[in-house]
């Protein structure tokens, strides 16, 4: 076993070399590079300290929103950038998480704030001539139950979806189309059953938590999710996932259970999206059917693509840039904003194929290796990059400038 690991006829077969290789040591990059830690800490401090140096409640609410969007984009990046599953229905999980939490908050809010007619039920229920909260909604009065449902139910849904589709090698276009239909149906469901969901108006007017304390909580969860994602993609599982993304047939022939890996990462991603939705609902205090619809799903995909899929910083950069631009430009360019978004889709696909972070990464690598940008892009046959892709056996000599 030990001898059969790597055979390289061209290399000098020195005994030391052989011994090193047989132990299968790989020069894996550090879990987080020092620059990532410093830069990340700077950004966290910059965002987290906003309540101290800034006074605008509007900007504060935007920061919380963007952080939730960033988690959502990260969940898309996990499945799309690292496992090659393009889901156009990720907002389903975001939306369910958001709706469960919003319903729970609204129910409790209605206890203290009776409606105009004196009922202690949410106002949208009264408008739809419900006289009491339905029995199956009772558990949502407890926050802990609501949060558990908001996180677990989408994960179970994702698991069922994964079992049905991935086990039968349904992915790529088929997966994209089915998830798209899934979110369209959820949207229609929410609109139709307005007695329970608020319909077109969504759920509004409940006590939300747009406080600095909650911002720090969201920030903390962002860091946790980032580290989880880093650990996942940096591990053996992550390597297998990337091999599935690059060539699923070959991965299957090598003996990996491709479907199970896909289901696993899909569930993790759904959990993250649900958490983002739950945080979002508690932060902004208004949830509508649009937050569960296909348009929002694809928005998340474009944030990931702009930032750079296959990188973990990309989703954050993309969400902040695109969403930030929307908030600051759509006032001035209301009519033209949609055209800019459409153009962004085309631009990312045609020109900026690796996204912002990916392109910068390419450029840095090209400098380091003294190669042209083109060579670097060619080298990794995928557009999605991560520094950790550069695994090489410990005994391998340094590259001599050529790739």
């Amino acid at each position, binding site marked *: 076993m030990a001898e059969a690991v790597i055979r390289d006829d061209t290399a000098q077969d020195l005994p030391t070399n052989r011994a090193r290789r047989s132990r299968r040591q790989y020069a894996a990059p550090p879990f987080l590079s020092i620059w990532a830690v410093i830069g990340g800490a700077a950004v966290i401090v910059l965002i987290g300290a906003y309540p101290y140096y800034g006074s605008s409640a509007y900007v504060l609410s935007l920061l919380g929103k963007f952080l939730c969007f960033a988690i959502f984009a990260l969940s898309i990046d996990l499945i799309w950038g690292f496992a090659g599953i*393009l889901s156009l229905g990720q907002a389903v999980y975001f939306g369910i998480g958001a709706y469960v939490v919003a319903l729970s908050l609204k129910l409790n809010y209605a206890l203290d704030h009776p409606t105009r007619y004196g009922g202690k039920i949410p106002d949208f229920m009264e408008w739809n001539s419900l006289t009491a909260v339905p029995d199956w909604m009772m558990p949502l009065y407890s926050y802990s139950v609501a949060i558990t449902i908001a996180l677990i139910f989408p994960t179970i849904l994702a698991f069922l979806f994964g079992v049905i589709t991935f086990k039968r090698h349904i992915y790529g276009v088929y997966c994209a189309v*089915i998830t798209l239909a899934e979110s369209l149906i959820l949207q229609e469901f929410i609109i139709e059953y307005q007695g329970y969901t608020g319909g077109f108006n969504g759920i509004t007017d409940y006590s939300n938590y747009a406080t600095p304390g909650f911002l720090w909580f969201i920030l903390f969860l962002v860091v946790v999710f980032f580290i989880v994602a880093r650990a996942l993609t940096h591990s053996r599982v992550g390597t297998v996932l990337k091999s599935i993304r690059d060539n699923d047939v070959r991965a299957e022939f090598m003996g990996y259970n491709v479907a199970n890996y896909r289901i696993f990462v899909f569930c993790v991603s759904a959990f993250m999206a649900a958490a983002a939705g739950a945080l979002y609902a508690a932060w902004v205090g208004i949830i509508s059917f649009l937050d569960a619809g296909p348009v929002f799903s694809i928005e998340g995909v474009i944030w990931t693509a702009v930032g750079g899929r296959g990188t973990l910083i990309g989703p954050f950069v993309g969400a902040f840039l695109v969403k930030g631009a929307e908030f600051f430009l759509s006032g001035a360019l209301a009519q033209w904003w949609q055209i800019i*978004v*459409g153009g962004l*889709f*085309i631009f990312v*696909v045609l020109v900026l194929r690796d996204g912002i972070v990916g392109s910068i990464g390419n450029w840095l690598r090209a400098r380091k290796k003294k190669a042209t940008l083109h060579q670097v892009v060619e080298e990794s046959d995928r557009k999605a990059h991560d520094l950790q892709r550069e695994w090489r056996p410990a005994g391998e000599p340094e590259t001599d400038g050529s790739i």
Partner: protein
Amino acid sequence: MLQSIITQFFSGFSVVAILIIAAVGLAVIFGVAGVINMAHGEMIMVGAYTAAIVGKLGGNTLLAIPVAFVVVGLLGLAIERGIIQWIYDRPLETLLATWGVGIILQTVIKLIFGPELYYVGAPKILEGGFRVIGRLPFPYYRLFLIVVAILLLLLVYYVIFKTDFGLKVRAVRRNRVISGCLGIDTARIDMLIFIFGSGLAGVAGAVLAPIKSVSTTMGFPYAVDSYMVLVLGGVGSLWGVLTGGALIGETETILSFVFNNVIGKLLVFLFIVIAIRIVPRGIFGYYERR
């Protein structure tokens, strides 16, 4: 109850026809050219607006059909030359790019025509209707839709299987490199087939305009329905379009009647998911050797 279900079954024919009309263009673009065209709904929408303009100028649906074919065909030409031709080898990214095209089309049309709805009347000879079973009247226009659906399927069959162009298209689809070696201009074939599919989407818009108010967001549900038809029936097969459309249309009509619209859609969706679990590439799917 049973009689009303039978009535629903007959009125389901027109739903099936609508699905097929909407899906035929996509069957050509997605099934033959291999482009995941998310702007399909918006192409239908542009076709419908073309019909609205033709109607304003005094024409009727029968005149609007060829006009819409040309207008949306030209639009398809622009999209193919401008964007799609660079990304044929990355199908999932054609999805993103064409989604962007769809957003742009929606916004531009809204800027030009304003947010209000347009209504297109059916041609005079197709007004009125007759009674089949029970009391539900069956409008002539629905009959017209069924005829159009059949004609469109026959047209695509003829173009793909009986013409020289279709032969080249099938050759390119089977083996692009060898076809190129044999002297077929594959890039030109790609372009023409995309134009043909876009034109069919335009025809769908023109035909469907009288049964629905014309707005900028009318297309998206049609696009999703079309994708569902293709996924169930099998991509790249005309029998698939017919079968998928028939199954989805009939199930949805009857289930929507028994329960309600949304439950009907949900059940149809579950039905499709279960169906493709059994036949992953659709009922008439084409299993390629890799």
